């Protein structure tokens, strides 16, 4: 193996750090599990006669946005300790590769939690995920990429402020609404067992947003790191 690009190095560093400490992953997973509990109480499935096909999309997306928020938050808070962020900014590499490296690691962690929680969620609410697993997985991946792109950009910013835990959701949620809106809609169509023609355009458009948000991140990340 030759020299891996700085982007991959940063991604590897983040993942290695996470798998050694498992700080964010465990906490995020159990938080996501907790959200399932709240859903079970909030929407009394049996009493209201609702199926997972009806409101499963809501369960999946609320779980995703909230748990993703935690891991995105964490990815830059760890850099705050011992001025790692400054060291990262001093790296003789293009700032965009720092952004992309962080983004890759974030996507991996966000999706890993989803991979664990999605089957559990279906199991809790008595839904057979086997048929819809692939389309739902695709929708989640496509929309989570854009969400993580915006999240990585904003988390880099908020980690440097005083109230990062408050600011990140405040910045991220409104800006990321397009992806959440379409993610929910496409997921609902998948869960209802609709054919790919019914939701394919939503996934394609979300993929366009992913590209836009990643490009915006690459262009603007430079201004966030400089000191």
């Amino acid at each position, binding site marked *: 193996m030759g020299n891996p690009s700085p982007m991959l190095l940063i991604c590897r560093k983040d993942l290695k750090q996470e798998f050694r400490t498992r700080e964010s992953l465990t906490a995020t997973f159990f938080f996501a599990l907790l959200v399932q509990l709240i859903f079970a109480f909030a929407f009394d499935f049996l009493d209201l006669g609702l199926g997972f096909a009806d409101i499963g999309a809501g369960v999946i997306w609320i779980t995703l946005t909230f748990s993703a928020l935690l891991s995105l938050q964490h990815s830059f808070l760890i850099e705050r300790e011992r001025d790692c962020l400054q060291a990262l900014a001093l790296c003789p590499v293009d700032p965009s590769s720092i952004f992309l490296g962080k983004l890759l690691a974030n996507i991996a962690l966000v999706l890993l939690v989803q991979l664990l929680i999605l089957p559990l969620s279906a199991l809790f609410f008595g839904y057979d995920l086997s048929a819809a697993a692939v389309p739902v997985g695709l929708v989640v991946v496509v929309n989570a990429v854009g969400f993580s792109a915006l999240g990585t950009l904003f988390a880099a910013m908020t980690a440097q*402020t005083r109230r990062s835990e408050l600011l990140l959701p405040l910045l991220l949620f409104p800006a990321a609404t397009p992806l959440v809106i379409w993610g929910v809609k496409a997921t609902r169509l998948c869960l209802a067992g609709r054919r790919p023609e019914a939701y394919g355009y939503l996934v394609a458009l979300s993929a366009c947003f992913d590209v*836009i948000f990643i490009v915006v991140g690459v262009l603007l990340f430079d201004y966030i790191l400089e000191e």
Partner: protein
Amino acid sequence: METVLRRLETVCFSLVAGLVVVCLHRVFLGVPTEVTMGVVQRIFYFHVPSAWVCFLAFFVVFASSILYLWTRKSVWDTLAHASAELGVVFCTIVLITGPIWARPVWGTWWTWEARLTTTLILYLVYVAYLVLRGQTENRDQEARFAAVLGIVGFLDVPIIYFSVKVWRGHHPIVFKTGGGQGLDPVMLHTFMLCMVTFTLLFALLLIQRFRLGLLREELQELREQEQILGA
């Protein structure tokens, strides 16, 4: 620049002071009452111009954010801050007057239609923008972060609008502003006059808020100098 701003402010102030009186007279006494919607339709003379000013204000934030990152002159940041505050104020007016109109005409205070939803999200983006400004460590950081958000937020507007539209399907929009062929010319003139007045009002407030920002910075500098001299 100070004298130019002052002069502009005086001009804007005298124009706005006169025009507001004319507008109020025309809106409440001049224009005929709309046939189907009744008296409540008159809120449009405030609602639509506020919406226009709100978008204009956020555009100013966007433009000055780009100019700040490009030139690194703090005046652009001051201008962006001033404009964002005004945008939020006018957006609040839009979000309050809209439901007041919608209740009797649509029969509901709120509906998740593309325009309404976009305005609400936009409002939240710029409220977050103002919160972010208050939470930064120093002046330079505040300006940089705010500029980044000012750019991302504005680029997001068409995306949000488009996505809400697709989400809701292509619902027919129940009304058109003024609408139909039978638009009374008095209504149209009054409407245009209100648009001009609100735009001038925005200019006036923006200049004032901008000047205040500049003065605040000057004061800050003087204080820092004083500290250095005193130490």
